[in-house]
């Protein structure tokens, strides 16, 4: 269930775990330097990284697999590309292989990152540095190239058209990536904005509309993925761009999409008239610190005075609303007080 369909809303997420320093398999940080964390979530496998630098600082474009607590296994050379996603095959694809041509499409095996040709030899419209997702009817990319927005590359590889509604981001973005989302028809779009921060939102590829608000993290992020297997977001924090890390290793954090409830509105009547023989519906709204809705919260309803409470416990919906009904019987007279309590 989507948290909200109000495009443009900011939604705070809740830190679940971390920060964890990224380390290599023997838990020694000196062997490899992980330049970019994370790159892509590979369902059934984990976080895939690119750009792991070898000892001594010389650049080796390597790929690695990382666990949610930051341990990286270096798997081998990366043939210089930007990773995308192919939902139908649950595989990572790459938009360019040979530096310069930027048009070749490869598909990764996630065990060793061996590659396999997947498409035509060249795809003219597929640009370098433009990670994309391959859908049955089109390829989608999101980058700072052109209009700073979604572009749909049709399968003939020539025609590129704007995709979807205007971007919901705050600030000027510099680049974007598309990751696996919460279902095969949804993707998780992350964009970098000036200041080395990252924003993210889910996008419905069938409805062609944003299916979540923009997630707000409150800390500077370098990159992020949505861990489809576990329903959490993994963010990367780069020590080069984030001086708060004091030059230490990169870090990752794990976030819940849940909103921590902090505000509950007064009870309001939304349906019916307070009158003998009527059923009246009341509601409250639960939100977080940034007024973002908190779905799934349990509300205890109590009542003093005439009338019968029909729903003593209800859950908040996707927009943070919880409702209850009160039945006023014939002959009921006097004042009633309906109270909602949020159990934390």
């Amino acid at each position, binding site marked *: 269930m989507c948290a909200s369909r109000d495009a443009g809303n900011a939604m705070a997420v809740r830190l*679940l775990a971390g920060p964890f320093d990224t380390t290599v398999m023997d838990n020694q940080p000196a062997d490899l330097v992980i330049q970019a964390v994370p790159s892509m979530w590979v369902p059934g496998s984990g976080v895939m990284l690119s750009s792991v630098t070898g000892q001594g600082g010389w650049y080796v474009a390597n790929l690695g697999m990382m666990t949610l607590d930051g*341990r990286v296994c270096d798997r081998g050379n990366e043939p210089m590309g930007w990773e995308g996603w192919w939902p139908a095959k649950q595989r990572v694809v790459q938009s360019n292989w040979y530096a310069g041509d930027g048009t070749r499409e490869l598909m990764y095996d996630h065990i*060793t990152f061996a*590659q396999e040709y997947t498409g035509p030899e060249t795809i003219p419209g597929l640009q370098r540095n433009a990670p994309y997702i391959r859908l049955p009817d089109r390829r989608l990319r999101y980058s700072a190239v052109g209009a700073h927005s979604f572009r749909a590359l049709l399968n003939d590889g020539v025609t590129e058209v704007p995709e979807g509604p205007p971007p919901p981001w705050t600030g000027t973005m510099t680049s974007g990536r598309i990751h696996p989302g919460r279902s095969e028809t949804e993707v998780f779009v992350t964009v970098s904005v000036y200041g080395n921060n990252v924003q993210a939102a889910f996008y419905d590829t069938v409805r062609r509309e944003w299916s979540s608000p923009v997630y707000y993290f409150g800390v500077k992020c370098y990159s992020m993925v949505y861990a489809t297997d*576990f329903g959490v977001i993994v963010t990367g924090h780069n020590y080069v761009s984030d001086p708060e890390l004091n030059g230490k290793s990169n870090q990752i954090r794990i976030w819940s999409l849940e909103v921590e409830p902090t505000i509950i509105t007064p009870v309001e009547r939304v349906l019916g008239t307070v009158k003998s023989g009527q059923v009246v519906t009341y509601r409250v709204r639960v939100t977080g610190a940034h007024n973002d809705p908190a779905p799934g919260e349990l509300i205890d309803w109590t009542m003093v005075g005439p009338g019968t409470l029909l729903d003593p416990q209800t859950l908040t919906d996707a927009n943070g609303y919880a409702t209850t009904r009160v039945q006023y019987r014939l002959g009921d007279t006097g004042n009633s007080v309906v109270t909602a309590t949020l159990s934390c």
Partner: protein
Amino acid sequence: MLKEVFRTVPVKYKHAGEYFFAGMYSMVCHPNPHITGDASIIMTGVLFGQNPYNEVWFRGWRYHSVTGKLVKEFELLGSGSVSAPGFLSTLYVTTSRSGKYWGAEWANARMWPFHYGNIVTVLPGETVKNPEAFWIIDGPSLDYHRWEYGENGLPIIPGKTFVIDDVVPGGGRWITSIGRGASVFSLGVYNWQSGKWLYDLPMATEIVYITLEDENRCYVLLQNRVVVLVDYVRGEVLGAAKLPPLEGGKPYGGDSGLDVVFDYVRMAWDKIHRRLLICESTPDDPPGTCTVRVRGFQMVPEPVRITVPIPLRVPRQGRKIPVLVQAMDDMNQGVGYYVVDAQVAGSGSPVGMAVTDNRGAAIIQVACEGSPYYVASPAGDWEDTGSPEATPPHTGLVAVTASIKVPPTNINDIPVSGVEGTGTAVDRPGPPGSGGAGNQRYLWAWEDKGGDTPQSPHAGAPTSMDGWRDYFCSIADVQMDQPANDYEAVLKGLADQGMKVNPKPNEKPTTDWPFNAMSVMIDGGGHPRGRIWLPSLSDTNHDSYLNHEMQVIKDDPTAPPTNETAPNMSYIVDRTKNSKPWDLKTTDGKGKFVEACVIGMHDVSAAWGHVKKSTDPRYNGHAADSVLYKNPDGKTVELFQIVTDTGQTTWAFVERAESQTAWYYPA
């Protein structure tokens, strides 16, 4: 991971001039034609003398695939050996799916089928007099150019590895290493009969060696020591594992030990025992003993660590939250079907049992009580590190720790049970050679290894072997059969004083060579070997050297074995280290770490315990850097260091002691 399940005895040098195992040529596992379920491992390699370009021994070995014992050695080319026609082709030997062998001579772009002759039937003690018995060509040769440039003109890297499937329908497959340009490495699959290129399966790094496994599958060893199992008919990668680190570090002239290169490694598949056989060119032991041996591995899913417990939902009063841990192997692949033992401290309790799935993931359900707070730290416990969001009304802490039982990782790790002794407290004994009556690993010796007749150009030099021995003892200030653990320093000291080092072929001793023209052997790493040479003025044995070789170091037969018998518990050390941050810089921190390790080891085998210690540095009355293993003989213990002085974890056998009184484990 690759679990070691088999190893042969190491190669032994046969001749005095053999200096190091220079490289691998071929290795196959050949079913015994007479005994069902038996096989021989046939390996060839090259040994170099002190001057690699003047002395070369090309040799074959046959090992028993069950016992690992040497069945037969074959001299194939070199000093004092028979010659074998076409020996160069044995550099590139492969097994076909039908059981045939193929050798390739890339310099001439040809490959041909052959079968091994007497080498697979000769009995121990028999002599192979006919060189053809080793290598018999039994079919027409093929020109590999038909694959070199297939229909798309893609070149093959000549001189590399290949395998043949001459059984699979459709003309068979020829699978080899393909070069597609700089830093692009592929497994090329061709039609064996027609030579037509079928497809590439690019690999992460350079392909070092390929060997067939069972139907449609082959193992591919990559330069980064990753072994990949490939289905070459479907074009799929089935799995990957990391080859354990090279034993002994960097070989002579070889790789760094972190990577593998073609000249120093060979693989073969033992289809009877279902083992991947790997032989690497490992460096000699310090006194010059060859350590090269064949090891057998099985690719098994075994975890090497579990991740820090991570909550997947926010802990809240009355809520049952999922907490994720993953059991991961050495390639960060999840390992399934392990039961997770979860402990929850604070305002929560575990619900039910957690078992890892095929991703290695296990979900621990935790029932939250009160209003707990959380946040996973690298230590595995949760603590409140603050949040950028509003702080909820936390009232308690939930901490989750998780562990799984990990089985032994190789054949040396199998726990040994036996009689446990008792005793009184004593301090940890000192290291070997630190004084007292401790056994020594090496003794001074005077063993004649043969060569030319000793004769010095100096007047007054010794003329008998006893005289040379006494002279050596006087200049080295040593006594025969006395401790020689410092032999490297002694022999290096002689070289520093001007003793001739490593005389070259046909180099005649002169009076300019001090010490009566005696010379010493120092290897490429600057380390003296346990051998010296007496000078000679005539090449009586026609080996191009004018000297007579003497072994001046021997093993002490009463010394403890260099390889311990206790199971290797390094995985417990690693697991403990990874469980939380440890302060390994202080004695107290080390002591706490050692206690945690000993608990884990003791769970596996009750023979593991602490080292009693009454003097500092110590912690809780025991050593803060070591553990003890009680041997099943009820008399001896083995001491292992697990923390170094600099605060690094290690697994280092220190010594065997003749008393179990220093061992204890708290009740």
